[in-house]
């Protein structure tokens, strides 16, 4: 059954093709080896019956309480042929400062990930998500978050391809002076299709948000970016900004950008900027003038687009994995 997802909050002309994307909803998971690994023994796996009680349809997951973490948390979800549906709940307890790194990989036909976040008063949570499947037909990743008073949520996201991948992050800035920052990078190639939807709803006074999305497209890849900042009644003094920057490596790619600012409050500031273009010739010349061959210069430029995100990954093996992916990406 096909269902609509990543629906624009304010529809535009249908012929542009950005109002929504459609995904296949599975009736039943395909069986395979699912591996879920967590670095911190204090973190408990979610019992299957608990998952069944929730709205989520999942075959693995963890319940994370930041007050119990002893360091940076690392969770790996991996599938070897089966459908992967992970469900995680993170409660950032009052006054805590935590970092969690989630990776999803392997060979899946279907991936559906949902992370539910509750950031309590004065907490800070940094969530790093890396999606890099060797093969996937349809990959959906969602975050639903509520951010409390003076709490801060940082989401750093890296999307490394997939035949059809959808990202749907929705953040509610409920508390006064709550903050949310999304910093993401994506690479798509071949005939891959990417639909990215970030929505931040400002509800609390003096709340702050920013969305930064960068990446590169090659071959005949198609990417749609939908970034929405919604300043609701009562969010006076709030500020938000969104920026998208995409490098188009081939003529056959399609990059669509839909930055939206909705506003029902007077005293707010929202800004957006989007740019998509080929590699700047002056930048290429600068790099090659230092002896670096053209192909290596192009690789460096693409890497530079995702590096600000990659540099935030605290684990060297993961950074190395991204570099290997990039080498293959440029050679394909």
């Amino acid at each position, binding site marked *: 059954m096909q269902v609509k997802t990543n629906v624009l909050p304010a529809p535009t002309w249908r012929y542009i093709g950005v109002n929504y994307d459609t995904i296949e909803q599975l009736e039943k998971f395909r069986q395979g080896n699912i591996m879920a690994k967590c670095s911190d023994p204090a973190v408990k796996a979610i019992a299957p019956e608990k998952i069944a009680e929730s709205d989520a349809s999942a075959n693995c997951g963890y319940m994370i309480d930041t007050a119990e973490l002893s360091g940076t948390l690392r969770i790996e979800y991996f599938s070897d042929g089966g459908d992967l549906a992970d469900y995680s709940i993170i409660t950032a307890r009052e006054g805590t400062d935590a970092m969690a790194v989630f990776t999803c990989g392997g060979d899946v036909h279907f991936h559906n990930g949902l992370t539910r976040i509750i950031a309590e008063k004065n907490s800070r949570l940094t969530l790093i998500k890396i999606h890099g499947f060797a093969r996937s037909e349809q990959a959906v990743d969602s975050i639903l978050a509520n951010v409390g008073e003076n709490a801060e949520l940082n989401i750093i996201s890296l999307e490394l391809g997939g035949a059809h991948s959808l990202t749907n992050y929705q953040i509610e800035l409920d508390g006064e002076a709550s903050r949310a920052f999304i910093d993401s990078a994506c690479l798509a190639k071949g005939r891959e299709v990417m639909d990215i939807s970030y929505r931040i709803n400002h509800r609390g006074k003096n709340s702050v948000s920013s969305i930064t999305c960068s990446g590169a497209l090659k071959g005949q890849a198609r990417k749609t970016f939908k970034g929405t900042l919604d300043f609701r009644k009562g969010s006076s003094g709030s500020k938000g900004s969104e920026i998208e920057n995409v490098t188009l490596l081939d003529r056959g790619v399609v990059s669509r950008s839909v930055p939206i600012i909705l506003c029902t409050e007077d005293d707010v500031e929202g800004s957006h900027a989007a740019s998509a273009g080929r590699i700047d*010739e002056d930048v290429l010349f600068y*790099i*090659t*003038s*230092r*002896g670096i061959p*053209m192909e290596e210069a192009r690789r460096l430029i693409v890497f*530079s*687009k*995702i590096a600000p995100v990659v540099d935030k990954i605290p684990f060297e093996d993961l950074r190395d994995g991204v570099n290997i992916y990039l080498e293959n990406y440029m050679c394909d």
Partner: protein
Amino acid sequence: MSDILLEVSDIRASAGDKEILKGVSLIIKKGEVHVLMGPNGAGKSTFANVIMAHPGYTVTKGSIFFEGADISRESADQRARRGIFMSFQQAVEIPGITLENFIRSSKAAVTGQNQPILKFRKQLYSYMDALDMKRAYAGRYLNVGFSGGEKKKSEILQMSALEPKLAILDETDSGLDVDAVKIVSEGVKRLLDGERSVLIITHHQRILQALAPDFVHVLVGGRILMDSGASLVEKIASEGYKWLSEEALV
């Protein structure tokens, strides 16, 4: 073996439909310091970019030889690997690549040898110290958020690390205060070991006082109207270029 490093013969070059260089010739021997002066729009930066093979310029006539090899058809990276370096008037910013990683990649490219991190970093820091450049800049993204002066130092830092046989400095002294000009000049001096050469494009006397040029060339309207010694710099400083154009027209 010839001591000629660069030999540019009757170069004509255009940007789009506009011809900018109208037959420029220049010979630079090993160990020499040359200065290229001229009014705005004369074609000085174009000349530098043409030597470096900027794809935005079309060379319609002439040849460029470097150490006896015809490099007229070579790309920028090939020329850089032969030992030509250009300091950019407007250095580009590249978020995502640190200054250190960029120079390390460049060094590996021009030498053909991998650069071990710790050894390279030690050498880089010594160059930075000499340029009075904070070491923290090594870990910052290339030229991003650098002031005008810091960008110029970044260019000289790259030159120092890459140790080119020929360095072309395109208005590297512009926008620098007196102290910074002195530091940059010292950086260029350290490169000059009797074998390496420099071509300085400038409007100012200050950097030339420190570097003592062997030859001064004046480019006007896409042509070199005069080749002379260092004394020409003072005359240009006091009288400008108008007399030169008039003299050439006579």
